[in-house]
Structure formats: C-alpha cells, structure tokens
C-alpha cells in the first residue's frame, strides 16, 4: 500500500473532469444543436474553476510549491514538464474561449481547446505510467483518464446542456459507463495472469473497499439509475465524481511498485 | 575473488582531470571570475548532506564484548562527531566497523540518552526526577555509611558488572568497590567459562592463534560459532583460506549465516557436540590417522584416551547421538586428519550446555590428536588473554583501614589478573553471577542491601528473570550506571549517566585478535555524563566528606593519566612501542605470543597436552574427555537464544537507526512445528515454559530444526520483549576453576508455544 496521494487524486480527477466538460461541450457545439453562448460560457467557467481547484490541490503535493514555476524546465525528457506545458496551453485556450465566447460560440476554438485537453490527458497518461509500476506501465493510465473525462464531462455536462442535447449526453454517458465497467472489472483479472508485481497489484485492487465502492457507487448505480430514470439526473455527477475519486485513490495506493519486491522473483 | 578490487577500483578512481583539479586550474587562470552567470562553477551539492573534508580525527576502540574489538577513527568537527570509520592500520579492522559500530553516532547523540543523575520515585514507576551529582552521591554515600554501621562491614553492598564496557580503566568499578572495603561481588561469567576451564585442563591456558593466520588453514571447522554475525572481520580470513583451497565445515543446530557460506553444513543435534567429536576421534584412531609423533612428544594420557574411544565410542553411536550420518562423520574425520594444518574454531554458544566443558575437551582432543596444536593456521581456537597484561591500576585499590570482610575463600573472575592479596584473611564475599537472582535472595549475614550495576544489564541479560525481579525488590537501594533507560534502569532507585567510548580515555585489547588500541577522548562528555572512574573519584570525595577515611579511591583523578598508568614494560615490549602515544597513529599488533603452544610448552601440571587431566578429575569431572550426557528436555521443544547481528546484548538494538533495519523480534519456528500448532508466518504466539513466557511474532523457516525454536537475545526500545523470561539459571559443568563460577546452560532450555 502506497500513500493515497490525495493531492494527486484531486488534481487528476478534477483536471480530467474539466477537460471532459470542455470536450463534451465542444462535441455538443459541433455535433448538436447546443450552442448557446451563455451556458457554454458558464460551463467553461466551471471547467476553469474545477481545473484551478485541481491545480491548487496539486500544489499540496509539492514539498516546495514555490519552485513550481520551474517545473517546465525539462521538456526534453520529462512528461511531467510536458504535462505542465499542455495544461498551460489548455488554460490559455480556455481563458481565450471565456473571453471570446460572449456573443457567440466558436466551434473551432472549442475543438482546439478540446484537442489541447486531449493532449493534457496524453501527457498525464505518460507521466503516471513509469516503468516502476508494471501494471500501469502502458496505455492504461491514459485510458483511465479518458474515462474520467468522459464520465464527468457527460454527466456534469447535463447541468449546462439544453434539453435537446441531453439524450445525446446520456448516450455518451451510458456507453462510457459500460466501457468503464468492463475495463475496471477486466483489467485486474488480466493482471492476475501477469508477472509478480501485476499480480500483487490485482490483489491490492480487488481487496480494496474503495475499488468496489467505485464500481458500485461510481459505475453500477449510475448505470442503473440512468436506465431506470431513462435520462441523466442533474445530480448524478456527484455519484460519478465520488466513484472517480475512490477509483483514483486505489490507482495511487494500490498499484504496486517494483521496489516492493526486491529480492523476490519478478 | 577480489581481483576486481585492486585493479578496477584503482582504475575507477583514477581520473586524469577531476572537476576539482579543473576548477583549481580555472581559478588560477582567473578565468572563472570573468565568466557570466558563474558558468563554470560546478552544480552546488546537496543541501546539508555532504562529505566536506577538513575534520579532526581521534582514535577510539569499540569496547564491546566482541571478538573484533575494532580500532575506530572518529571524525570530529566543531566538537561534534560527524562520522566514524574503522582504523585502516589494523589489518584486522581494515577500515570498516560493523552495523553496530556504524551506529555509534546514534548511541552518542541519541535523544534517549540519560543526561543527568536521576532518582526514581518508586521502582518501575517511570517517575524519574533529575538530581544533582552532589545529591546523588550524597544519597548513595549516606546509604553506604548506614550499611557499614549496621553490619560492621560493607558486605551488604554488591556489585554486578561484566562486559558492557571492556575499556581497561572501567575496572575502576572493581577498584571503587575495593576502596570502599570488603564487599559482595557477583563473580563468574555467563559467557565462556566452561570452555576456558576445558582449555585450561587440556593445555594449561585458553590460548588461540592469531586469527589472521587462519588463511593458512587447509581445513576449517566452525563449531557452534557464527562469525558471519559475531566476528564479521574474521570472515575475510575464512574466505581467503577457502580461496587457497581449504574446506570449510560448519556445525551448528541452526542453519546460520555462517552455515550458508560454508562448503558443508551439519545440522547437529544440540549439545551432542562431544559425541560427534569423539566419534570422529574414534574413526581417526581406527584409520591410523593419529599424528603419533606429535602425541608422543607433546601429550600425556593419549593411550588411556584411545582405550576409552575403543571401548565406549563408535561412529554409529556418535551418529545416533548427533544426528549426523555415519559416512559424513568418517569422511570429514579423514579429511580433517589428512589436512595440514587443520583448525577448529569452538564457539561460545557451543559450550553453553550442562556438558559444555566436556564437549570442548573432546574437540580439543580432536585437534591435538591430529597434531594441529601449535601450528600456524591450526589450533583449537577459542580465545586468549595474551594481550591483556595491563597494570589494572584502576582495579587495584586498598580497602580503608579497619575494614572488615568475609572470612572465606573468594573466587576470581577470568579477567582478574591481580595477585591474591597477602594479608589478613578478610576477602570480598563472592556470589555466582550466573545465579544472581538466587544469590541475592539467599545471601545472609549480612543480606545484600544495596546493588551497584555498571557495564551490565542484568534484567535484560540474566536468567530466571522473574526471580530476579523478586531479588531486586529485596534491595534497599539499587544504583545503575548506564546510558539508556533499559530494563535494569527501570528497576533502579538512582541512575548515573555514564560516558561513551568517545568521551573517555582508556585502552582496549581483544580476546581474539592481537591488536592494541588507544581510546582517546574525542569529545567532551555530553550533559553530565561521567566515566566509571570519574564516578568512583566523585563518590570517594563525598564518602570522605561525610565520613573521613571511608573510601581510599583518589578523589582527584586525571582520566588521561589513569589510562597511561595501565601501561607497563610488558605491554610496551609485546607491542614494540615506547609509549602509549604510539597508538595515536593507529592500533599496534603484538609481535610475539601469536602462535599458541608453538614451543610445545603447555601450562598444565605435566607441561604437556593432557588428554588425561588429573586436575580435571580433582575438580570433579572426568580425567579424560569422555562423553557427558546432555540435559534432559523439560518441555517439548528446545529453545535457543543466541546473538543477533544487530546488537550486542542489550546495546544498539534500541537505537532508531537500528530500528530501520531491525524493527522487531521474532521467534523462528520450523514450518512443520508451526503447522502442527496451526501457526502461520507472522502470527503472534505465546512461548511458554516453567520459567516464564514471551509474546512474540512467528517467522517460519527451516533454518531451525523441527525440534527447536529460536529467538535472539535483545532489548528493543519500548518493548517488554525479553527472552530471559524463558531461561533458567542451570549451570554449565565447568567454569569455577578459572572464571570464578560455572557457566550457564543457556541453550539447554526448553519450551512450547501456542498461537496467541
């Protein structure tokens, strides 16, 4: 068991939620009828605040937050520096959108910002998959982070979407919930047939009440509610957020580091 | 082997242009000043975690009860010790200490260290109050004076002391006691007395070769000894011997770290070492592999021994007793006899049995009959005291005029080199240190009223612990001189803070290697700590203040002078130095006396090696090294409580640095034994026997045999764990002859365990 890394849990979940909000709203502007500036602006403002909240949380992770500005120094090899850069770009575009989207929305800007958000998730995915964690030294973190973005983007997006867009959002949410359920149930099982550290990771995840909490509260329950209510309640995102926070906590605490097995067979 | 060390390390270190040299050059060229942004200045090193250079160095010696007695080089800056290294001049220490020695900084600067004299209001209450030295010594002196008046002697004052600090000036504690009058002394040693006596009966002294000559051995049997843990510096000689073609055999009830490094390991049935040695001897005799020339020239009684072997010993019998297959016994016996030279290192654990002394005699016989005594690379190695010929100036003090004492024989400890005093028949009352609890409770006329403890931790180390607690309750005053609030201090009335090796002047020798080390005062004593002789001087001053003439110990001493006073011509000649100051350049090695019995002149009554020792028979044992039966088990499983690498008795394990590597004690159980009791790895278990019980975590391993369990002797901070709860005070056979009292059958204990 590693530490829960709560600052990073908040940072990643909130950051991905913000990106999800932007991405889903971009999708709505491009693909759907939902292009009302007022609500989009509110949504982007919410995304901005959420992202900033996540960034503030991440500061608590640092031993010396004052040095944070220097975190861009190693773009050459460090995905963490690149993550900082892409977040900066995303924030700039978000800010630009907030300013420009007073009278009308700009689908191009929306898509560009969403793309920037995707880049953030890519860099985050790379940052959190070092070789020291064999179970996630792959595209899984990227996949997990995409799921977080889509889940929160489509469920919290309901708050801002016009009624006409809501079925589309519900469809995105439903599909993502099913995909997430499959992935989160399947991945530990696959790990069980992997190397020693993967197996241990599977063991920790499957034994964690938070893992099961996320499955039930964050995925199964929302899915059932959406089916039952034939739509997404405006407050459903609370359950999903709780689930994502729990799941991210397991991601940090329950994923085993190679150094934990020094002296044993790998 | 270590080819890489010489060439690769030199190559690795050799850098034609180090950054430092580059910088020096650049600075000289005045170039750096001109460069913008300090372009060429090397990256600044880690904040606060550096090796800086520019230290003052001092010489110290580790004074613990350890074969290795390392020479220490102490690096000081601004009056604070920054780190320690081993003395490079000693080929034995060779620049490095051990896990314990490297933790010395934490012992020196531990926040748990006792800073001031303190008085405890209610023993065991933890209600400690700081008092001044003056007040402490006043209380103590008043008690001593009161006792003297009540009993007409100082016999009510008892001292228990042993090996907590082997710096020679620490015998000043004994000196202090002598200077107070005739007192009660706990005499003897729990450590090695049976083996000492055995070697004395066989050869006339305990005397081993220079361990550094082990490289010459062609066959090495490590018998009941675990140097990989208890004498790490000797391992390199064993490895070198193997490199040169020697076979290393390890005999031990437990698969120790040493066993894992041997060529062949025998899991002997505990305490049947005598039978095994005799079995090997019988086979060697049968095969005609005895070194008849050596035996004829240098020994007496071999024919009787041979007769005993032929009539009472067979290889099959030895195999049955020891559990070692017969064909192994015969093969190794032949290999041992054929190797020239061959040597056996007899461990102290091996003789902590009711038949310990007898076993040592049997093993000695094995070495002698194959002609391996008196050879470089050979010998029956146990220990020696060749380099301990100091003046014992601190120890030898006179009783005050008119002092009365005990009218009876007094026993002497093995480190007591003082001459028996000629004069009145008064003497100290000597009690068996190995039965401290019983002796303290039983002593009468007068009873023991006050106990002084220094260089010892009886409530962590001594036996029959529950009884010892009772004995402490009987004491009217308990004074403990120590560094930490250990289990003995917990039951004291007054604790006096004592100096560490870095804070006192003394001199140290080893009972294994032949190096001599000076111990300089590297830093001033922390807070109000005093060395044992400083305490003695201060006590004397106070005693005489309250009752003139009550203590003869000098009240004003210069501890550096007192260290110098331990030296004499004998020591100087042996080490080839003119003055102790020569030791400031590093430890020095004895020039002679390093080949035990090389001249064939044994210290026995006959002047020969005595297979048959009349003296031994006089003392109540067998004249020949005959088999003596082991202790009958009194419970289901044998309990072994040997030493751990992480501590030396109750020292070091309590340090936080050590806790990083050794956080808790375990009981080691064979998986079969555990399964039968439904115990899994990591379970809490209760180990119980007739003496007491211990609650502890289980670790399953087949390093221990199915019929034994093992836990290490240790004192963990804030942990009541103490294996002595389970150890009774049954004596070993020998020890009274040269060490004042028989030893203890520490490893002849038995217990059972259940899941807690």
């Amino acid at each position, binding site marked *: 068991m590693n530490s829960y890394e709560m600052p990073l849990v908040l940072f990643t979940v909130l950051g991905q939620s913000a990106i999800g909000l932007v991405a889903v709203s971009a999708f709505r502007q491009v693909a759907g009828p939902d292009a009302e500036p007022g609500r989009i602006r509110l949504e982007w403002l919410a995304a901005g605040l959420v992202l900033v909240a996540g960034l503030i949380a991440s500061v608590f992770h640092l031993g010396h937050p004052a*040095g944070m500005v*220097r975190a861009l120094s190693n773009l050459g090899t460090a995905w963490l520096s690149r993550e900082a850069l892409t977040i900066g770009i995303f924030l700039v575009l978000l800010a630009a959108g907030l300013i420009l989207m007073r009278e009308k929305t700009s689908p191009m800007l929306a898509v560009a910002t969403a793309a920037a958000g995707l880049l953030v998730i890519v860099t985050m995915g790379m940052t959190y998959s070092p070789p020291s964690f064999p179970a996630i030294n792959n595209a899984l973190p990227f996949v997990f982070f995409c799921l977080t973005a889509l889940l929160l983007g489509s469920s919290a997006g309901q708050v801002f979407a016009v009624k006409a867009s809501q079925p589309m959002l519900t469809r995105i949410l439903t599909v993502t919930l099913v995909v997430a359920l499959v992935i989160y149930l399947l991945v530990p099982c696959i790990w069980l047939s992997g190397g020693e550290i993967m197996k241990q990771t599977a063991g920790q995840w499957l034994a964690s009440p938070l893992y099961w909490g996320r499955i039930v509260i964050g995925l199964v329950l929302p899915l059932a509610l959406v089916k039952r209510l034939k739509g997404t309640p405006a407050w459903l995102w609370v359950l999903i957020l709780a689930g994502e926070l729990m799941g991210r906590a397991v991601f940090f605490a329950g994923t085993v580091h190679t150094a934990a097995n*020094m002296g044993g067979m790998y | 082997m270590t080819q890489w060390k010489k060439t690769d390390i030199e190559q690795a270190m050799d850098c034609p242009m180090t950054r430092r040299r580059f910088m020096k050059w650049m600075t000289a060229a005045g170039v750096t000043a001109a460069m913008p942004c300090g372009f060429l200045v090397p990256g600044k090193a880690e904040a606060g975690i550096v090796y800086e250079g520019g230290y003052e160095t001092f010489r110290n010696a580790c004074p613990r009860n350890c074969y290795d007695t390392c020479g220490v080089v102490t690096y000081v800056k601004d009056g604070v010790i920054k780190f320690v*290294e081993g003395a490079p001049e000693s080929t034995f220490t060779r620049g490095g200490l051990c896990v314990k020695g490297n933790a010395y900084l934490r012992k020196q600067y531990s926040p748990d260290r006792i800073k001031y004299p303190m008085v405890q209001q209610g023993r065991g209450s933890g209600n400690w109050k700081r008092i001044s030295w003056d007040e402490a010594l006043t209380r103590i002196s008043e008690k001593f004076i009161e006792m003297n008046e009540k009993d007409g002697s100082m016999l009510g004052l008892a001292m228990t002391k042993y090996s907590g600090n082997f710096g020679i000036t620490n015998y000043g504690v004994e000196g202090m006691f002598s200077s107070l009058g005739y007192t009660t002394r706990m005499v003897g040693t729990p450590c090695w007395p049976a083996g000492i006596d055995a070697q004395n009966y066989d050869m006339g002294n305990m005397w081993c070769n220079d361990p550094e000559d082990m490289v010459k051995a062609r066959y090495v049997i490590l018998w009941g000894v675990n140097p990989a843990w208890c004498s790490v510096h000797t391992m*390199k000689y064993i490895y070198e011997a193997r490199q040169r073609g020697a076979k290393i055999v390890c005999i031990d009830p437990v698969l120790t770290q040493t066993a*894992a*490094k*041997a060529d062949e390991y025998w899991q002997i049935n505990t305490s049947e070492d005598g039978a095994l040695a005799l079995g090997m001897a019988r086979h060697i005799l049968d095969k005609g592999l005895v070194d008849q020339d050596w035996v004829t020239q240098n020994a007496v009684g071999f024919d009787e021994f041979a007769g005993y072997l032929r009539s009472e010993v067979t290889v099959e019998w030895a195999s049955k007793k020891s559990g070692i297959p017969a064909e192994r016994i015969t093969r190794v016996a032949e290999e041992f006899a054929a190797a020239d030279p061959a040597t056996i290192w007899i461990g102290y654990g091996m003789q902590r049995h009711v038949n310990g002394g007898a076993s040592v005699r049997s093993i000695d016989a094995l070495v002698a009959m194959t002609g391996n005594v008196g050879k470089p690379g050979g010998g029956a190695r146990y220990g020696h005291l060749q380099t301990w010929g100091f003046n014992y100036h601190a120890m030898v003090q006179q009783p005050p005029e008119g002092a009365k004492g005990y009218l009876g024989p007094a026993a002497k400890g093995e480190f007591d080199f003082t001459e028996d005093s000629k004069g009145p028949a008064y003497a100290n009352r000597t009690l068996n240190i190995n039965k401290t609890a019983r002796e303290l409770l039983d002593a009468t006329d007068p009873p023991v009223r006050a106990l002084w403890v220094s260089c010892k931790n009886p409530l962590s180390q001594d036996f029959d612990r529950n009884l010892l607690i009772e004995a402490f309750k009987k004491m009217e005053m308990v004074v403990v001189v120590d560094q930490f609030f250990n289990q003995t201090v917990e039951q004291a009335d007054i604790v006096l803070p004592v100096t560490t090796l870095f804070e006192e002047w003394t001199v140290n020798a080893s009972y294994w290697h032949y190096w001599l080390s000076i111990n300089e005062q590297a830093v001033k004593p922390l807070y109000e700590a005093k060395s044992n002789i400083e305490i003695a001087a201060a006590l004397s001053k106070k005693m005489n203040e309250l009752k003139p003439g009550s203590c003869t110990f000098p009240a004003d001493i210069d501890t550096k002078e007192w260290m110098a006073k331990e030296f004499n011509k004998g020591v100087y000649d042996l080490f080839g130095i003119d003055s102790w100051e020569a030791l400031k350049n590093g430890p020095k090695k004895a020039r002679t006396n390093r080949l035990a019995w090389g001249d064939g002149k044994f210290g026995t009554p006959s002047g020969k090696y005595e297979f048959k020792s009349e003296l031994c028979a006089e003392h109540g044992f067998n004249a020949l090294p005959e088999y003596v039966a082991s202790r009958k088990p009194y419970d289901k499983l044998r309990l072994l409580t040997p030493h751990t690498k992480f501590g030396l008795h109750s020292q070091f394990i309590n340090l936080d640095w050590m806790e990083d590597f050794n956080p808790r004690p375990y009981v080691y159980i064979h998986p079969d034994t555990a399964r039968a009791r439904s115990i899994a790895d990591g379970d809490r278990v209760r180990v119980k026997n007739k003496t007491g019980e211990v609650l502890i975590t289980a670790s399953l391993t087949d390093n221990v045999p199915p019929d034994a369990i093992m836990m290490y002797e240790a004192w963990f901070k804030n942990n009541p764990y103490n294996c002595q709860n389970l150890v009774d005070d049954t004596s070993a056979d020998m020890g009274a002859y040269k060490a004042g009292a028989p030893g203890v059958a520490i490893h002849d204990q038995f217990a059972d365990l259940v899941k807690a």
Partner: protein
Amino acid sequence: MKKQLGFLVDADRCIGCFTCAMACKNQYHQENGVIWRQVYPLKEEIYPHKERAFYSLACNHCENPACMNVCPVKAYYKRDEDGLVIHEQDKCIGCGNCIRSCPYGAPQYNPVLKKAEKCSFCHQRIDEGLTPMCVLSCPVDAIGVIDLSTLDTTGLVQYAPGFSRQPVLNPSVRFRLPRLPEVVRRKNI
C-alpha cells in the same frame, strides 16, 4: 565506452551484516525511514534458506536514469567524467516523480527537508580520492566500485533474480550470485 562507475554486488561473499547500510547512515545521518542503501534478503523462491543471501543495493547510477528523465526541474545530472547520477537537492521541489519512477526505489522522500534524496555514490569522497563509505566499511569486500568500461565481467550478471530487469534504464550494477552450501540435516526428528 565512456567511464561509468557502478557498484559490484558480490552476493556470494555478502553475509548480510548491514554494515554497508549503516555506514551510509553514519556518513549522511538520514532521517529515520530514509534508507539510501538497503540490504534486501533474497526470498526463499530464489535462495532456499530464509534471510541467508542478500543484495545490498543503493542507487544504480543508470546509463539512462529514470530519475533524471522524469524530473521536471532538472535537479538530476549525470557526471560526464564517471557517469554518476547526482541529485542537486537545492533545486528539488519535492514533487515525488523520481521517487515514483525509479524501479529500484533509490530516490526517497525526506519528510523534514520535503525533498527527494538518494545515494550519491559518495561523490565528494570520490573526488577526494576516497572510497564510498559502504565500500570502505564492508568487512568481506562484498561491495566494490567498478568501472563498466574496463570491467572483467566473468562470473557477473547485470540482472540477478530478484532485481528488476530494466534494459531501457541500463543500471550500472553488476552481481555475483550466491552459492549454496551442502546441507546435512538430521533425519526423522
């Protein structure tokens, strides 16, 4: 090949005495729980006798170090002259990325300074012509300093069982594997 210093871990000679681990503490006085050099017992699946064979490991001063690659503030550098990987604690912001990313657990978090730190190969001692403390202190020459560019690798392996295989990082440590004694046990106990 350029000079690359590293540690030789001779698990055959090693007696697991922890002298090296404590020698490092003795020199650098790390906070409790911060262990630059750890002595790992080999599990019974690799060496059949419990806690009787060990790998003493600190930092492996890799050719392509994870710590240096992932550090956002470039607080690590690799020395040109000998390949040692040095952490400049002054620059560290305590983000923990190196701590998470090194498969060998070499960088650790100092909770008092709130920064990472790790084995420095005693490079200040090396620069003064001295040996690292662990190497100096080992009583049986079970740790040594090697230069990979000139090393005779006979009998040595890079990835001993129980040591994570990371060819991308290319750790500069080499192992000699421990041998087994011939064990004679009592029968029918």
